[in-house]
């Protein structure tokens, strides 16, 4: 039995598409219901857009707070990025994003901007299930969260025995194959969504893209520099190909702030950075082609 399965659904504010082959339809449907509960649990824990979420519930707390184990995992993933970007990637940016108008009501109304506390001295990991919070903070995992969730879904499918599949959450994609299968990915033009600036090939790897265009309001787009309270404007779009979706997601955001060479000291990845002049800057071994202007 080797049936192809293709499923689309909306979750965490984006469109998902999961393609997989192997196993029966019944087994696939059972797998999908587990995927949905995994995503639901993740949203309930990490979404600052849900007033009943865990991160909203602990937003006024200080002292030692019990957290899920993967909360700690996620926190620790931020640390090298926080340091390499000079503090630009910071999961304590939640309140500032709200102040900029990127809040649970999607008010898009700017208020007085509060500064983002440094990680050091504000959050301390006590053990695998507890953190200590010095001052009340609203966690925002926007830089890594979606990629991390894709990785969790990936692990779930792999544990269920799937060998050939891809998971696409709003254009962030991770794929797996045992047969050198290649997924051809179009790189969406940040201003004209019916066109692509190039294509890349994915095979047992992940891609994440980030662009300021679609989620923008006033003087902001959804990437905001916690150090300045402004949205970076020299870079208009980035893509990163890496081993995991979480890493690709994190680096695609980090490239709005930091040179690729700085990030490449610590991480292995391929990249495309599109600047506002229409020039793409990309790594030498990029598996794909860009359309020359």
């Amino acid at each position, binding site marked *: 039995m080797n049936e192809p399965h293709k499923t689309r659904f*909306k979750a965490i504010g*984006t*469109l998902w*598409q999961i393609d997989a082959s192997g196993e029966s339809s019944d087994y696939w449907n059972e797998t999908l219901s587990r995927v949905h509960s995994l995503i639901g649990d993740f949203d309930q824990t990490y979404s600052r857009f849900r007033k009943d979420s865990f991160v909203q519930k602990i937003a006024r707390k200080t002292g030692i707070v019990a957290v899920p184990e993967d909360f700690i995992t996620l926190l620790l993933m931020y640390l090298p990025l926080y340091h390499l970007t000079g503090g630009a990637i910071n999961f304590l940016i939640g309140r500032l994003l709200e102040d900029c108008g990127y809040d649970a009501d999607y008010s898009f109304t700017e208020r007085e901007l509060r500064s983002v506390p440094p990680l050091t001295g504000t959050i301390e990991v006590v053990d695998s299930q507890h953190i200590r919070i010095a001052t009340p903070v609203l966690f925002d995992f926007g830089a890594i969260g*979606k990629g991390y969730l894709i990785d969790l879904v990936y692990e779930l499918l792999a544990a269920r025995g799937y060998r050939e599949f*891809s998971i*696409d*959450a*709003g*254009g*962030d994609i991770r794929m797996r194959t045992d047969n050198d299968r290649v*997924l*051809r*990915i*179009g*790189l*969406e*033009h*940040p201003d*004209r*969504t*019916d*066109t*692509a600036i*190039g*294509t890349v090939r994915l095979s047992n790897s992940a891609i*994440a*893209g*980030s*662009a300021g*265009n*679609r*989620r923008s309001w006033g003087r902001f787009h959804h990437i905001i*520099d916690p*150090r300045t309270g402004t949205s*970076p*404007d*020299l*870079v208009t*779009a980035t*893509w990163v190909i890496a081993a995991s979706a979480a890493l690709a997601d994190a680096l695609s955001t980090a490239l709005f*702030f*930091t*040179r*690729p*060479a700085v990030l490449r000291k610590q991480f292995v990845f391929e990249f495309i*950075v*599109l*600047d*506002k*002049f*229409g*020039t793409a*800057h*990309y*790594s*030498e071994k990029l598996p794909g082609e*860009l*359309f020359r*202007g």
Partner: protein
Amino acid sequence: MDAGNDAMPAAGESAGTSQTTGTTTKEASYRDGNYEASGAYKSPAGAEEINVTLIVANDVVTAVTIVPKAEHPISQRWQKVTADGIAQQVVGKSLDEIAVDNVSGSSLTPIGFMEALDKIRAQAQS
């Protein structure tokens, strides 16, 4: 691109560009040679200037040197993004001209977009 535009001049364009050597190759969009240009743009920190040197051979940019003149630390970081990897001016190609399995970009790609992709794929296979 007009002189005075706050964008970086690209190779082969006139504003502030000097070409030192050049040969024309078949279907090449750039002539071989060394190109130098300075560009000015406005960043949130104010007006900024950079010097750019490009070496073009067989229609490929083989070397890029960028010397930022910015004094603001944050702007320096952004400008130096351009100093890594290969630099190339790019354009969008219509998605119905290229066969792709998925699309990556801003993360709110609507359902209609993916459905349109399916239709294109179906047409291509019929």
